């Protein structure tokens, strides 16, 4: 009950912001919300389940492209198109995951990297279905029950997506499944000995998070009303990885902080250093991995525990002068 109230307050606050922003700020705000959504699900896959997969952004693209193709080319009504897209994402994720999770460590990274690149190749060569290098444009969101969802109301839809993803992953993380994921990440052999089906856990985690990425992609498709191969290139998945690591892998709060910092950083830095913010990203990443492996959220934890420690000492001194 208490958490439901919290979610409603968060939804109201995050949606409220949408109604006071100008058009440029709305664009930045929507994309920030989408990055956070993606970072949350990637955090579950990478940070909690320990799978280094480079296919997350490809699923974002698959979601975006398929919903557009289903609506414009197959003339499906929106609810059906959404269901079909989710089904497609789940099916593709299973196709990738069932053989790929057999592979240990970096081989999974490579198989998913190859899959993501194959996706780009298919986009470029898809002819009229995917629109080739130019992508798909000139479409818009169909009315939902006769209402055109536009402007700040569409931002509200993104907020609901973000909170839905957050709530689902939050519950999942605290369930037996989340514990199984952590066990598989930390020590697969021990996990198996404790009765965890390591492969099933990996396949499920991969499929769920990939479907969530596809869902976010669907919402993204109607933000710019254009999808093209350049948006879903390899660079973005690195950025996602950097966000999760800089924020603090394995912690939802870390994913939120990392996504916010790394998404807003280029906007802040570009007046100073132009388009070379990627260099700052790289340096940031190296420094975080070496000096602060628990990420920015780790710094915050240390600050909090340091303060508690000091308070405890003060009380101790008061009690025993």
């Amino acid at each position: 009950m208490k958490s439901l109230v919290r979610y409603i307050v968060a939804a109201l606050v995050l949606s409220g912001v949408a109604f006071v922003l100008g058009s440029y700020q709305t664009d930045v705000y929507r994309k920030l919300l989408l990055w956070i959504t993606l970072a949350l699900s990637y955090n579950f896959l990478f940070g909690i389940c320990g799978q280094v997969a480079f296919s997350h952004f490809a699923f974002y693209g698959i979601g975006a492209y398929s919903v557009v193709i289903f609506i414009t080319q197959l003339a499906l009504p929106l609810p059906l198109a959404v269901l079909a897209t989710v089904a497609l994402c789940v099916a593709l994720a299973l196709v990738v995951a069932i053989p790929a999770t057999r592979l240990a460590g970096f081989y999974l990274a490579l198989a998913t990297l190859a899959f993501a690149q194959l996706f780009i190749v298919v986009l470029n060569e898809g002819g009229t279905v995917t629109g080739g290098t130019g992508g798909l444009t000139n479409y818009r969101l169909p009315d939902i029950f006769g209402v055109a969802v536009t402007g700040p109301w569409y931002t509200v839809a993104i907020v609901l997506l973000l909170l839905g993803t957050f709530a689902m992953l939050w519950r999942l993380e605290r369930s037996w499944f989340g514990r199984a994921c952590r066990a598989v990440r930390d020590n697969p052999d021990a996990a198996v000995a404790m009765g965890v089906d390591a492969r099933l856990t990996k396949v499920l985690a991969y499929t769920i998070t990939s479907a969530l990425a596809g869902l976010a992609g669907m919402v993204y498709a109607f933000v710019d009303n254009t999808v093209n191969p350049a948006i879903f290139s390899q660079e973005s998945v690195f950025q996602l990885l950097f966000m999760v690591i800089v924020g603090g892998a394995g912690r939802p709060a870390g994913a939120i902080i990392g996504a916010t910092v790394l998404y807003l950083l280029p906007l802040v830095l570009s007046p100073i250093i132009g388009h070379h913010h990627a260099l700052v990203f790289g340096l940031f990443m190296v420094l975080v991995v070496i000096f602060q492996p628990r990420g920015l959220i780790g710094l915050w934890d240390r600050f909090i525990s340091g303060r508690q420690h000091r308070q405890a000492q003060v009380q101790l001194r008061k009690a025993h002068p």
Partner: protein
Amino acid sequence: MNDLLELLVSATASGCVYGLVALGYLLITRPTGIVNFAVGEWAMLAAFGAYVALSRMEMPYPVGMALVLVLMLAIGWLTERLTVRPLVEKGAPPLAPVLSLLGMLVVFRESVSIGFGADPQPVPPALGFGRFEFGPLAGAYQSFFIIAITGLVFTGVWYFFERTLTGKSFEAVAIDRRAAALMGVRLGRVTAASFAVGAAVAGLAGMLVSPNVSAHYMMGMPLAVQGFTALVIGGVGRVEGALLGGLVLALVEQFTVRYAPIPAGLAMGVPLVLLIVFLLVRPTGLLKAREARA
């Protein structure tokens, strides 16, 4: 027939380049277990080194080449010192160095893009432009140069691992780190050396391929993926595997582009499919690693 043989020469040359990149991975992965995706970026750095030395300063080729290789040895050694050693000493999880090297990949690429701009820069071939005909075999001078140098490098590396005591100590670390350390092999030195030589070998690949593709700050990632595909095809355990994998990959790639009735863009997907198939069906690659003898 002539067409086929000409294609064979050029495919062998690109196979050699892939093989060298794969060797760059292998030299680091074998003793340390670290997969260094920045090898492609090392190749890119060397290509720009070659551009500065050969095109701008117009040094003679051997001098320029030697200089670039020395530079790459230094870069590899520094990369290990600054971004890998601190993590290993702290006992960080095995993923940590991979991630910090991924960060270095971006650092290398962006530094070059700031320093040299986004335009491709020309690098001259070793023996000038021209065609060499050797009976029915014909191809560019550079293709034959690439094949010859790669042959030399692989022979040298093979000799080092198989016939010298230092090379055996590297192999010992690859088979069992702890046991090797207990036997008096200095792990730090082996790691530093493998990074330095790995960077030099990857740099050589970049330098050899740059006359054909020009030095460009985005050239690293494709090379990194092709090199890794070659490594997976050949098998991560053996030096010969890297070359074999590179050759198989390049032959499949160029023959599908040339002869298969599919659009050129889709043919780019063929190596990726090959990579996936090999990962799933035969993750050990064509050649198996040597196991520890009981």
